[in-house]
């Protein structure tokens, strides 16, 4: 099994709900708390497993906004695991989830240096490295309804831009989405073989504008009259 996420950049609206839901679930989860520093101060900061950035692709007028959620990619070749001197970082054989054993971590930051995706953040209060667990304490919880056995970010996404599943199963929803929508991985050239996959925005036809009323002097007079005269 190779569990991971598919993120649909076509439908993501950049609302940060995934990050908030992640913070809410995981702060009381197995690697919680996700400590906040100065939460009500001038420069609030803290530990997050999920961060959303916003980019502009292309130049005006052919530009487009892309909202970009990122969390741990649970890479196949995860250097964060191999560089860890204490054995605190590990990748699970059975499902490929990359985790940090909070009891073994010595807080040297070396794994965060090895991660190209910025998935690991040191909790300065606890002194240990923290990262996305793919909600490992939730996806296997048999007391939950089957539909709830998914990461918090996936369940909460109001735009349904996040999918969770097994990439080793060619018939899983995530595998089909990757095939159908030409899913791609981030920064393949550094060679980490990330599991999480991104779906590019769909190529859509331009919205037809033939039926839009042409501008003319007569129409301007009509518009002005319509605005001015109260009926």
């Amino acid at each position: 099994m190779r569990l991971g996420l598919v993120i649909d950049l076509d439908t993501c609206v950049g609302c940060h709900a995934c990050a908030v839901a992640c913070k809410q679930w995981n702060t009381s989860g197995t690697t919680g708390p996700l400590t906040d520093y100065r939460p009500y101060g001038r420069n609030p900061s803290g530990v997050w497993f999920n961060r959303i950035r916003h980019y502009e692709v292309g130049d005006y007028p052919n530009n487009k906004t892309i909202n970009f959620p990122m969390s741990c990619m649970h890479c196949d070749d995860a250097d964060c695991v191999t560089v860890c001197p204490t054995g605190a970082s590990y990748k699970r054989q059975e499902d490929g989830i990359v985790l940090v054993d909070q009891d073994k971590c010595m807080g040297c930051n070396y794994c965060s240096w090895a991660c190209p995706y910025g998935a690991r953040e040191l909790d300065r209060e606890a002194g240990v490295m923290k990262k996305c667990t793919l909600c490992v304490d939730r996806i296997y919880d048999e007391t939950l309804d089957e539909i709830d056995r998914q990461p918090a970010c996936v369940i909460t996404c109001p735009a349904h831009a996040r999918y969770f599943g097994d990439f080793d199963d060619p018939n899983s929803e995530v595998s089909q989405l990757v095939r159908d929508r030409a899913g791609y991985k981030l920064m393949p050239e550094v060679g980490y073989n990330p599991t999480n996959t991104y779906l590019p925005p769909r190529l859509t036809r331009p919205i037809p504008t033939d039926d839009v009323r042409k501008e003319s002097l007569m129409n301007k007079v009509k518009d002005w009259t319509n605005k001015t005269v109260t009926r």
Partner: protein
Amino acid sequence: MHPALSVIIFTVSSGAGYGLLILLIGLHIFGFMPDMSENELLTGGIIGLGLVTFGLMSSTFHLANPKNAWRAFSRFRTSWLSREGLFAVLVYPFALLYLFGIWNSGVELNAFIQVTGFVTIILALITVFSTGMIYGCLKTIRQWNSALTPANYILLGLALGALLLVALRVSFNGEVGLVASLTLVILDIALIAKAIYYFWVRRVTGPSMNTAIGFTRANVRLLDVGHTAGTFLTEEFGYVPAAGTVTLFKVLVFVLGFIVPGAIVFGMTGGDASSGMVWFALISGFLGIGLERWLFFAEARHVVNLYHGAQHT
């Protein structure tokens, strides 16, 4: 990268200590310095081990959770950081046995001194190589991901060790000509290697913001970074030194680190030594290499910066 003082002190101090041990023991066990006294060898060995210990202690200060530091020896099969720790610890028993041999039976060479000394040299070299590889193996930082990184660590460690050895010889009124010539050669090679490194890292290669977010068909730029204040990622990786500082420090690295000590040592190759100038060369060398280490960290640009608005590293 954020240049952490504890790591700068660790790499410079332990590198110099290993450099001194390698050169001191090497010149002794291969018979190049027959006039060395027992006191001189013991003093040099203790200074070398002292610098190494001071450096290793300093490295633990950047740990956020040092109570688990003992676990760092467990993953030597994959982690260069673990290997560095393991080899650093392995040097001690052999170095101490070598020094015990000298304390016990004097400077006359025998099999015990030669074997323990030779093993110390090999282990010290591997340790400094491992220190370099901690940085050299990271594919996320192109300025470090180069064979020049471990090469520079070894050469700069040997250069500082050689300057320490000159100071030791002068302090014990030993014959200084050979050591001064050797130091000059090492300084020259280290200077050339460092110059090649600076030339090499100037050229931008590797991932760009386009490949980072996967849109390679058009220009991309950051609209909003998504957080209001700094994060761990911006604090750890976002450090950008001022361009003027970088240029000034690079000049100082060459002047203080190589040219000043090189010129002073050149004056000693004939065998005449003034103790004041030796200490000046030593302090200048440590300052220069300290600045070199600061630049090594400050100039390194982690690829996560691409997600925070950098077009390239």
